[in-house]
């Protein structure tokens, strides 16, 4: 049941209606039932996975929580009675028991994710090596279906268990509440990856119908549908034509395809998140934002702080920091500084952590070398610009352009182009093909390709281009206004007639200009597959 299907819209209307009609204490149980119905549409057979994750994380959470409580109590009671060494010793043993439980839970759940998502990728790599070694033996691929949203709910649950382990908050004692946190339907398919302490603040509360929340939520949903249906699904046709026919579309077309894809990905992904957050808002539930106008970033590092924010912070909090401050890593850092000198020694641990994080980020996006290369390229660019910091500082001290509009625009465009180029890995069939296509932009770039009518052969008509252009103008304008605060808050203060006009225009343009139904490939949100 995709967000843009009729059945989802009907499903949603029913949920909205019931949610405010039933007694308030039944609101969150309703959402749990709704989430499981939503999940059931993808296939009953997937229930096993999500239920297993829910139960195992719930139980281990309780266990670790209790251990943590006992530990704190013991330490408090015995403070001053036992010696510092004894206390430290107790802490260490107690922590290691908690750690074992955590490790068990993570191995189990990341194990499920790994097996369902990466088995065939591993097999194909083994086969490649076997073939290289001259072995005639090849392993067969397994028919494993990827459970819907597994990357997202696994990350959500594991974030929870690590937080409980760290004593950030107490574990949830009600298994049904926890099950709702794991399966909450608006964010199961494509995030955002919410944190338990953040989401639970509003998720289990009783909510009165609030007209402003409803208004804001609805507009946000419509805005999401607009981005998704009018823009993303429309331009998708053009993107596909280019990237599926690499022999025909080279040079200038790769460049166009790259920009198209940047546009599509943005509209598709942020549109989907708009729908998710909008739905939650109508239900009175607050979800953390996942984007902060990412295409206005001045460099890649900043871009990654503003794009898919919840994923970035997840990797930072639960992977980057832990490996960076892991004791052996710190010891290695000391050793490296002694051996290679201060400047290299200082960098090595950070670099190693970064590479690990980006490798993981890449493979999280998809089980293929394309995504791994994509992740590592991101890492490479970030590290290089880190290294160039002194140069930038020198540059800015020499030329006073830092805050000049023109220079900032240059940085923004540079970031967009760079990110789009890196994303080519995401487009083409394999890594060598990506390099070839990237190269063709420089060896085979015919400006005339863009003006001889070929653009009308990509499956987009002149009228489509007009719609896309108007969409671009609208999106950019909205983003620019957003800089000064919430667009919807401003709109809410305006007379009702203006608000209703916005509703009207959004609804009518989604219905008329939406790229849905016969004649359009109904596509899924790009991030569903992750």
């Amino acid at each position, binding site marked *: 049941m995709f967000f843009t299907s009729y059945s989802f819209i009907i499903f949603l209307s029913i949920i909205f209606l019931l949610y405010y009609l039933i007694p308030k204490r039944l609101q969150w149980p309703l959402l749990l039932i709704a989430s499981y119905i939503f999940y059931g549409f993808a296939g009953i057979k997937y229930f096993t996975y999500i239920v297993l994750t829910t139960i195992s994380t719930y139980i281990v959470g309780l266990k670790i929580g209790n251990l943590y409580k006992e530990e704190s109590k013991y330490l408090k009671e015995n403070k001053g009675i036992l010696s510092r060494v004894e206390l430290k010793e107790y*802490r260490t043993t107690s922590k290691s028991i908690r750690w074992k439980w955590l490790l068990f839970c993570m191995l189990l759940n990341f194990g499920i994710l790994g097996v369902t998502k990466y088995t065939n990728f591993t097999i194909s790599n083994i086969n490649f090596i076997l073939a290289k070694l001259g072995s005639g033996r090849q392993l067969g691929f397994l028919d494993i279906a990827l459970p819907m949203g597994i990357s997202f709910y696994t990350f959500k649950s594991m974030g929870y268990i690590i937080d409980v382990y760290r*004593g950030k908050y107490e574990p949830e004692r009600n298994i049904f509440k926890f099950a709702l946190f794991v399966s909450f339907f608006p964010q199961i398919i494509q995030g955002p990856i919410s944190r338990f302490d953040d989401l639970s603040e509003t998720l289990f509360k009783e909510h009165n119908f609030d007209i402003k929340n409803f208004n804001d939520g609805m507009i946000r949903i419509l805005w999401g549908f607009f981005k998704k249906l009018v823009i993303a699904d429309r331009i998708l046709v053009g993107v596909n034509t280019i990237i599926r026919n690499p022999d025909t579309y080279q040079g200038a077309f790769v460049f166009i395809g790259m920009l198209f894809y940047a546009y599509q990905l943005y509209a598709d992904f942020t549109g989907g998140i708009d729908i998710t957050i909008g739905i939650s808002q109508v239900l009175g539930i607050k979800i953390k934002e996942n984007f902060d106008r990412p295409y206005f970033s001045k460099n890649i*590092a900043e871009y990654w702080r503003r794009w898919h924010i919840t994923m970035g912070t997840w990797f930072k909090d639960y992977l980057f*920091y832990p490996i960076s*401050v892991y004791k052996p890593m*710190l010891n290695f*850092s000391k050793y490296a500084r002694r051996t290679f000198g201060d400047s290299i020694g*200082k960098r090595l641990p950070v670099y190693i*952590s970064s590479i690990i994080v980006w490798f993981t980020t890449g493979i999280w996006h998809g089980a293929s070398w394309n995504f791994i290369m994509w992740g590592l390229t991101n890492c490479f660019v970030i590290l290089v610009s880190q290294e160039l910091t002194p140069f930038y500082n020198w540059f800015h001290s020499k030329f006073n352009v830092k805050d000049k509009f023109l220079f900032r625009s240059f940085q923004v465009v540079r970031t967009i182009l760079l990110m789009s180029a890196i994303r080519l890995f995401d487009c083409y069939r394999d890594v060598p093909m990506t390099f070839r296509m990237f190269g063709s932009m420089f060896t085979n770039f015919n400006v005339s390709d863009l003006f001889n009518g070929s653009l009308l052969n990509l499956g987009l008509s002149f009228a489509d281009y007009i719609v896309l252009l108007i969409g671009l103008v609208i999106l950019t304008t909205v983003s620019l206004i957003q800089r000064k605060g919430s667009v919807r808050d401003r709109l809410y203060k305006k007379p009702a007639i203006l608000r209703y006009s916005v509703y009207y225009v959004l609804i009518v343009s989604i219905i008329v200009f939406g790229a849905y139904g016969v004649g359009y490939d109904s596509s899924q949100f790009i991030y569903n597959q992750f």
Partner: protein
Amino acid sequence: MEDLLEILEDLHPDIDFETHEALIDQQVLDSFDIVTLIAEIDSVFDVTIPAEEIIPENFNSAKALYKLIERLSDY
């Protein structure tokens, strides 16, 4: 405290760390800085800051960070 300020100023010479109260919130320190910082603290104070302590409250000012170091070395 002096040692800590020295480490910090090494990272960003242009910042007055004695008074700054929003090092994380205003993105003065990025994740690379934090990791470098933790490594330095580890070697200078022999205190390992665990991942769970990497939260804005502990890193927003030099004072908070120093408190954290003291607390951790307590054990």
